[in-house]
């Protein structure tokens, strides 16, 4: 025994008490989060499920709540998210590959790194203002799908870049050396070994970024996405609306009927987001198994 130590039984009893307290606090934290989520889901579903039917999914917005539908917003969200992915994923992965595999560690590149990290924390409304000035006015894209997708791409890019860089960094350097040692170039090494191994981690970042983009309202309102769109987008220059904007519009109407439409819209948005995430997670897990390096 160490001189001056407390009796063992006493110490163990105190530790057990502390552990019990900690356990209760931790369970409470989980319970509060789950209860909040549960209340939200219950609220949305109890109001929304009644309104959610085939007519709601296949109709355009209307002045009469019972005839209103979310079709234009679903189509708009689908186009915007597809375009945003098509723009931000290649750009983001490209930037991450450059920063991790090619860039020299100099002051300029360090400055780029710090700025990208900061960009991830910029409020989304700021991206809306930038999109309004840059895409809508200067590039004269107007309130088009393209302007919306470009604005959301700006928002998604920092998250994609940061997570892709982290994923690339976890690829063991021994794998790179192995490829170089058999005469692979830097690009061959990146394409054949680094990117496939980093893929699951890159997917995680893409899931996060795109899920955020699908639920974003503020920047799109800022660039003037419409709230009343009675047609499907016809091209990249077409005006559009997205689900969160449609929901926002319905919530702000006084009629009770529109309130139900909003709840139904939330249910649709939640289900689509979860489906998108689910698909991405399945893909990620598949590649995680395929390229597992854990035993290395």
């Amino acid at each position, binding site marked *: 025994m160490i001189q001056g130590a407390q009796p063992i039984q006493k110490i163990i009893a105190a530790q057990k008490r502390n552990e019990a307290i900690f356990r209760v606090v931790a369970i409470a934290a989980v319970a509060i989060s789950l209860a909040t989520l549960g209340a939200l889901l219950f609220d949305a579903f109890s109001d929304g499920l009644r309104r959610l039917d085939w007519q709601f999914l296949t109709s355009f917005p209307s002045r009469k709540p019972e005839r209103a539908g979310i079709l234009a917003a679903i189509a708009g969200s689908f186009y915007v998210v597809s375009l945003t992915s098509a723009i931000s994923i290649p750009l983001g992965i490209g930037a991450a590959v450059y920063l991790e595999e090619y860039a020299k560690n100099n002051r300029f590149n360090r400055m780029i790194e710090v700025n990208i990290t900061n960009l991830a924390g910029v409020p989304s409304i700021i991206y809306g203002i930038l999109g309004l000035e840059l895409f809508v006015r200067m590039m004269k894209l107007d309130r088009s799908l393209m302007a919306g997708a470009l604005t959301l791409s700006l928002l998604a890019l920092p998250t994609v870049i940061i997570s892709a860089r982290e994923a690339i960094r976890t690829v063991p350097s021994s*794998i790179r050396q192995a490829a170089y*040692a058999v*005469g692979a*170039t830097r690009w061959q090494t990146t394409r054949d*070994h680094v990117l496939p*191994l980093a893929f699951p981690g890159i997917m995680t970042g893409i899931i996060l970024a795109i899920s955020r983009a699908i639920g974003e309202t503020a920047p799109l309102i800022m660039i003037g996405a419409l709230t009343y769109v009675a047609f499907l987008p016809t091209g990249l220059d077409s005006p559009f609306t997205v689900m969160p904007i449609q929901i926002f519009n319905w919530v702000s109407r006084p009629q009770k009927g529109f309130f139900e439409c909003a709840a139904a819209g939330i249910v649709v948005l939640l289900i689509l987001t979860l489906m998108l995430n689910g698909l991405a997670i399945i893909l990620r897990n598949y590649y995680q198994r395929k390229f597992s390096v854990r035993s290395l």
Partner: protein
Amino acid sequence: MSQNLNAGDVCLKVEKFNAWYDQFHALKDINMDIRKNKVTAMIGPSGCGKSTLIRCFNRMNDFIPTFRQTGKILFEGNDLSDRFIDPVEVRIKVGMVFQKQNPFPKSIADNVTYGPKIMGVRQKSRLDAIVEESLRNAALWDEVKDKLKSSALSLSGGQQQRLCIARALAMQPDVLLLDEPCSALDPIATSKIEELIIQLKEKYTILIVTHNMQQAARVSDHTAYLYLGELIEYDETTKIFTAPAQKATEDYITGRMG
């Protein structure tokens, strides 16, 4: 420093070679001729520069931003260390096996064929032949011939290291660099790799870095002792281990120093 090595063709000629990491002078004025179809061992305490030197033969130090070098390493009349020579070309001719086995997380066959594939070999029958030949040369064929499509990571450590040797051999290099190839292996796997090295010198010029004196004595024809970036002694292995010319070499190999 004596260099009275048996006559034989010189494969690699190191001339007045110096290397630095930032301000640290890692290799000091190295001159040595590495003989063709011999095994040359490099020994010396940690930090003596032997790994730095071996990595100069296939330009792996190019990836270290603070690395600088002067002098020449001549191979077939060309200076390998010349910055106008493409390191990819060097690495195709000079293969390397690393301290820790590092197979690609792909199938056994894909590990072997990766190099030939990026060199443009497409024909399936040719690739299959390369897989068999390389694995046979690496003394691994009999153990894996029935599971060429399974993951390289399912092999044991020693098998993985032999797969890495097969991967290097598939490129049909002239020189094979082995940087402490057995340091992560058990004695049985080690002895298999040592037998392999002795067989391989018929076709290849081999350089091996090792911390294991017995290993250097068992597998090598010539041994170089490096200390603090200097080549202290370079001679036939039997001479180094029985009658070294330098007191420092004797102290190191008998374990009184380092």
